[in-house]
């Protein structure tokens, strides 16, 4: 018998076991052992990999080290996507641990953003939160908050402090009862196969008649290719935080309970494994 609040905890404390291996072409003084780490799904690569950096920098010379970047099976991993999203999109049906390759050279300027310090991550994180609140509440809630509240959101994410984060974030998840939901749902749909980085459109959680829109309604509206007709075999998976919610799930509920800390619902559409 679980309560909705337990979902929040499960989402926050989700971890992905990862194995970091140094790219073979990097110059090292000694053999670099792979480094194993449990990564929080809800955080960002560059925020949680200090230990990885330190580990590999121990076996390298100072002059060979420039900005760290990560890659999986040839694709550079965008650090500004949450780790859980990256995993679901690229490696969800592969064997664990997730094998990530660490690079210190040849930063792919076209594919990745630079991340020189934690401030860059903070700025990106806060920008996402503000954008989400603009969609949900016309930015009223986020603007009413003080600077220290914003800071608390960031500190909660950085230090993995669930209560600290949600003490403030719950305000962003409120809405006037008359409306039965947010103004628009902040979501992004990612598909590994397309050129477009993601799909983001305006979508209301409640129909004019008062019924709640579901995940299926959202997909039908913004990404119809994702919906397989009844009788056909399902070829794709719609994944959030590593699970496949039923299409009947109300989108308002998903937004409140299964958003990432940046308040966005990051949804991955991936091909279904055929085994």
């Amino acid at each position, binding site marked *: 018998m679980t309560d909705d609040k*337990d*979902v929040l905890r499960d989402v926050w404390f989700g971890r*992905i076991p990862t194995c970091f291996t140094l790219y073979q072409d990097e110059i090292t003084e000694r053999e670099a052992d792979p480094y194993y780490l449990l*990564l929080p799904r809800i955080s960002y690569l560059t925020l949680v990999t200090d230990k990885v950096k330190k580990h590999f920098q121990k076996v390298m010379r100072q002059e060979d080290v420039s900005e760290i970047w990560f890659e999986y099976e040839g694709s550079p991993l965008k650090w500004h996507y949450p780790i859980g999203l990256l995993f679901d999109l690229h490696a969800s049906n592969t064997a664990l641990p997730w094998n990530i390759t660490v690079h210190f050279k040849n930063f792919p300027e076209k594919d990745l953003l630079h991340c020189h310090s934690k401030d860059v991550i903070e700025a990106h994180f806060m920008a996402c939160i503000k954008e989400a609140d603009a969609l949900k509440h016309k930015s009223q809630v986020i603007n009413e908050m003080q600077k220290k509240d914003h800071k608390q959101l960031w500190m909660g994410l950085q230090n993995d402090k669930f*209560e600290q984060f949600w003490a403030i974030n719950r305000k962003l998840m409120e809405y006037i009862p008359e409306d039965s939901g947010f103004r628009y749902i902040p979501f992004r749909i990612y598909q590994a196969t397309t050129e477009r980085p993601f799909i983001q459109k305006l979508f209301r959680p409640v129909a004019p008649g008062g019924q709640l829109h579901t995940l299926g309604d959202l997909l039908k509206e913004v990404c119809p290719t994702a919906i397989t007709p009844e009788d056909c075999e399902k070829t794709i998976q719609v994944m959030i935080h590593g699970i496949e919610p039923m299409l009947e799930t109300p989108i308002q509920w998903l937004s409140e309970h299964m958003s990432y800390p940046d308040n966005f619902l990051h949804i991955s559409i991936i091909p279904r494994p055929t085994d």
Partner: protein
Amino acid sequence: MGFGCLTTMDSLKTFEFDALGDNRGCSVQSPAMAMPSSLLWAVDIFGRVYTLATTGQYWELCKDGQLEFKRVSAVKQCCWGIACDHQVYTYVFSSDVPIRYQEETYENQRWNPVGGFCEKLMPSDRWQWSDVSGLKHQQLDSFTLPSPHWEWESDWYVDENIGGEPTEKGGWTYAIDFPATYTKDKKWNSCVRRRRWIRYRRYKSRDTWAKIISLEDPSQLPDPFNDISIGGWEITDEPAGRLSVWAVSLQGRVWYREDVCHHNPEGSLWSLVATPGEVVQISCGPYDLLWATLWEGQAIVREGIDRNNPHGISWTVVESPGSENGIMHVAVGVNVVWAVTKDRKVWFRRGVNSHNPCGTSWIEMVGEMMMVNVGLNDQVWGIACDDRAIYFRQGVTSSELSGKTWKAIVSGRESDRSQTGSSTSLLSAGCFFSDEVRDQANSIIQSDGDVSSDTESPRVPPNHADAPLSGAAVSSNENNADSQKEVGTHLAVDPLDSAQEEANSTSSSSEKAGLEKPESSVDQDTHPAELQWTNIDLKEAHKNPVLTSSAFRETSSVSSLGLFPVGIEEPYGTDEHPFWAWVSGGGCLVDLHSPLKWFTIQTGLSSSVQSLSLSITPAQTAAWRKQIFQQLSERTKRELENFRHYEQAVEQSVWVKTGTLQWWRSWKPHKWMDVRVALEQFTGSDGVRDSILFIYYMHHEEKKYIHVFLNEVTILVEVLNDSKHSFALYTPERTKQRWPIRLAAATEQEMHDWLALLSMCCCESRRIQGPPSHHAVWSVTCKGDIFVSEPSPELEAAPHLIPCDQMFWRQIGGHLRLIECNSQGIVWGIGYDHTTWVYTGGYGGGFIQGLASSADNIYMQSDVKCVYIYENQRWNPVTGYSSRGLPTDRYMWSDASGLQECTKVNTKPPSPQWSWVSDWYIDFNVSGGTDREGWQYAADFPASYHGHKTMKDFVRRRRWVRKCKIVTNGPWLEVPPITLWDISIIPSSAADEEDSIAVWAISDKGDVLCRLEVTQQNPAGTSWLHVGTDQPFISVSVGAFYQVWAIARDGSAFYRGSVSPKRPAGDCWYHIPSPQKQKLKQVSVGRTSVFALDKNGNLWYRQGITPSYPQGSSWDHVSNNIRKVSVGPLDQVWVIADKVQGSHSLSCGTVCHRKGVQPLEPKGLSWDYGIGGGWEHITVRGNATEAPKVALQDTSEEHLAKSLDPEDGENGRKGDQSKANVMVIEGQELDRNAVSC
């Protein structure tokens, strides 16, 4: 030994009621989960009576709609009204508990040598059939039903239970002579005998208007009635519950209805009360306020109303606020009086209270009202002049009794709503219906010239309130047409035609009247047959064209499809509102905490979203939700299980919270000292958080500290303390010593913050989260706080039991007096105010907010309790009883012990969370009885008090009581409407899922009830089944195999035979004598064991129970010093004991567990001590977790051998001693600072 079976009770039918009581006026769907709701009553201008529930949003037509009414006056349980025949009617709500009255008579016989005992009595004897005193002749057949609203429940039968003792067959009691003391034993010198015959009559006219029939002399009868007002229930407390009913007759005389009370809802007779003038209107408040309006325009106030004198003594005149405009209408509450003068202005009377019912001056209020009415909590309702809508006075609080502003109630009627539905269906039906409409309208027009009343087909209701205004009719017709156009309708019928049609009806009626236009108003009175009777003054309607045009619109709304405008844009009915003539709020409780839906238009959606479905798996049974939970746990398993040895990317740091508190020093001299407190929380490698609480203090200039590992803390409990906000922290060791760590904070908020934080850390360190399981043990402290503990399987595993001082208790929000549960998750609670609550499956609540509390199933919960103080007086020869006592005497105003001074002024509610909801009033319900003024007498302080004064009584005291209320929240939902005293749930059923779960209860009036249709999905059940008894009962318990035991008020026990799932109420009561010279007060039945508790604290076990002989044969003494007992589904025995010694102090109210309970040894051997003192109640009836049976056989044999061994005398003795007493050590001074109630 022995028992008596009341076979005559077989004929007693057990009456069943459906869920009417729960569904009163509620628009919420599921009957089992009706929220507590009270009703606002109103009468519209057509005489129809409507009620509006505080949880509903539409006016519902009164169930019995046969009559038309002029006035109504309501209280919570009933409503009195005056119908258009000027007769008085009463409407009593049906409920699961019937209104029954016991009639009795005695059959007397004298012994003579010839015929033995026979009816031949001596001439000087009493009647053969008489009342108890023998003075009145009361033959069996002379008993008649007092009115047609009563019916006999059964025939006469003999009472075979006298004073708790069963009598012989035949029910005779014997004595030497009349009158004397009767005993059930026939002695050699018993010359007379008598027996008591009983018959019950039942009030049957419930949920219907019952006419008050006066059987007296017609010449004495009051003339037809004009006004009625009821109130006065606060003067006389429950359970007698007398109601004051005042009425005014057409000739201006005031009548009082005598003897209206719970078991006599119609009262007995009208008595005349003299008045200084002709009275036109009267208003009675819940307490002792009574105002009336004289024809001349002044008000008169009744003085001297009190408990002994509900009529009052005299009248005082109060002048009207303005000299030109007299008072037309007056309304009173508890502390307020409102009036309306003839110019429709509203006035508030300042300075009204119990000592000064006349008040001091008038204040003018904004608003023009026809009438006002004061409801419960001094809330005010009014009906406005211009639109005849009902207004609510917003902002009335105890500090602001006159409120702030009037707010209109826009709720529509249930009937309007259904028409809204019909309008949309018409729309969608399209042309098909529109054709019909046209035809009908056309046909009406065609019969234009037809003057006969056929034109006034039922389709066009002749609302002749508007009709006579033919002068205004034309203009109003135009208004009608305009307004209809405004609404934007496209009439299928030509608007002119419909207006024409209206004009036709009006003109035809005026033709019928055959008079000129202006006089048609008069004529309407003379043709009542055509008129639809209205409440309003027709002349007044004439003055107000606005009224008529909207009345026209209302006509068309009420009218049939014939006039129905097709193609209407807006939903119909939102512009219309009913027109009201009278409102009564005497039964309507408006709570500031529960919002009303009456002031805004609700859309259809929100009302359907209101469904309150309660289930133990809280309303989250949607498949998608289940799948999400399931997938998340699978994901965690997949991604984490095999990788726990990996390092965490983000390191958990130590997190500290510090603060300053006060600590009760543990060495002498005990006092509070300021300390610094730090809570350190660190995360272990496996992710589990552990916390330590440090307390830093100074001792002899040295800095020292004590620390507690939070995973050792067993309970955190708030302690009532006059000056400090303090709480106690226990570990197993400290529980043994009865010496917790006591900390105090500066403010209540700070204390709650710490308690919430500490309890969250304790739960985390024990990995406890979410709601308690079905096997949880629930307990309640003397303060009303609720604690729950999760039992480990070894808790009841003999022989190596886990000591119960290691049980971890966490708090659940709410305030209750007792809780009962079973192993299927059904949990019920009863508050101090006897309100019944059912558990919703949540956790947290109270001060535990945020994430440690479940979201959906926490609701507001409130409780009311009484605070007592005593007024003490000593007699002296000079002035008699006075408040001047001896120097050694107790305070003149004190608590029960006399040691603390408690005056009316300085006595505060128990804590800041409580607030007063009544004033101080004399308590007549003290044990020992009181005289008419509430005094109890004794020889000296302290002694046993009695209610009558004797020569030797030099002191007296009087108990004052004041009610205070707490509003909190918790996982509880109220189960209206019956208030309960005790409850019991079958511990665990061997039966299958479909059978409903047996729940037995005792109402606070002593009725025995069974709750029907309790299931896991619907733990609150649907309705009560009343099980008849001859006297009030005080305790009930149902065992695992449907054994139902109960204790009656006289202290005797009863066993209910043949209870089964098919016969939930069993068939008859078997009387079980109580242990010698003891009066029982509580019983608890487990799987097979039956334990009972008597009023002297002795615990008894029922010996000799076998499947064929479930009543057992005798009582075995188990222990003394017990306050409460609870026997669980494994026959485990837990008690609350009174005096238990710890190594540091004595405590009362301690949880104890009986050790050594086994099938061969059901009474157990010794006691294990757990948490306490300060505990009031415990229930272990949910814990059915059987421990793994390990080598049980050998050890039990061992034990048996030991105790039977006669040579081992010491062992035997020890066994006896531990069996006998829980705890001992009299004479040891009670440590007043011990944690206690």
